[in-house]
């Protein structure tokens, strides 16, 4: 059988890959893709803890459904911002979007 450690190490690796994408990528859409990978790794973690530790309480899956809704909202707003900025400034490079720099 598969112990929980396999899932935990898989999600740790997935989270760190997503974190690298968020920190290292230039393009704002690619940064959003990294955030999606991180959210997915958290979701696997929630479901794995539900399955291994409390299979009789459904809280883990219910929380994962909430994460789905929130991440859909986040992507919609994020991509709308990217498209709006592209229309006004002609760039999607995160380093060039510094209108609010003090």
């Amino acid at each position, binding site marked *: 059988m*598969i*112990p*929980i*450690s*396999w*899932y*935990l*190490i*898989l999600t*740790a690796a*997935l989270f*760190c*890959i*997503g*974190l*690298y*994408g968020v*920190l*290292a*990528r*230039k*393009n704002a*859409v*690619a940064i959003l*893709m*990294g955030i*999606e*990978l991180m959210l997915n790794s958290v*979701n*696997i973690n929630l*479901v*794995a803890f*539900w*399955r*291994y*530790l409390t*299979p009789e309480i*459904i*809280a883990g*899956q*219910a929380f994962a*459904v*909430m994460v*789905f*809704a*929130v991440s*859909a*909202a*986040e*992507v*919609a*707003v994020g*991509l*709308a911002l*990217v*498209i709006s900025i*592209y229309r006004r400034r002609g760039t*999607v*490079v995160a*380093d060039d979007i510094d209108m609010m720099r003090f």
Partner: protein
Amino acid sequence: MTALQVIFLITAVGTLGSALMVVITRNLVHAALWLVAALFGVAVIFVQLNAGFLAIAQVVIYIGAIAILMIFAIMLTRRVAQDAGPQTNPNWAWAFLVAAVLFGGLTWLLSAWSGFSTPMPEISSRADPLRQLGQALVSPNAYVLPFEVASVLLVTALIGAIMIAWDRKSG
């Protein structure tokens, strides 16, 4: 090694490989397609964890909506010149260091946890996780309030997204 373990390893390697291609590939359209592959791998992992509803929702919401939205955004903001240069910022080495240190730290912390090698418990044949989930999401004793708040948040965010992306000059 049992068949389940082999299936898990294949899925895990596929998911991690696709995720790695998402963050390192230069062409953004390819990155979005690799993202679809990684999300599909996550759906397969949900199936292995007896979360069938989440696997379906993963395919419908993430692959069907979010990844397609990403591809649309990439096409709308595409400029040929940007595909040529490097797609990482000058601090990518630091980013790699942070990610590697975080992975090492997480693995070290988790390996110190006493339940690290908990085996998978059997689900009793009378329990139906799908029915439980459906009832928990609409039951006043469980999660109906967070569920409704999440749906209001989704509507608000989508209206906000329309307002932000509205082109007032030509629209």
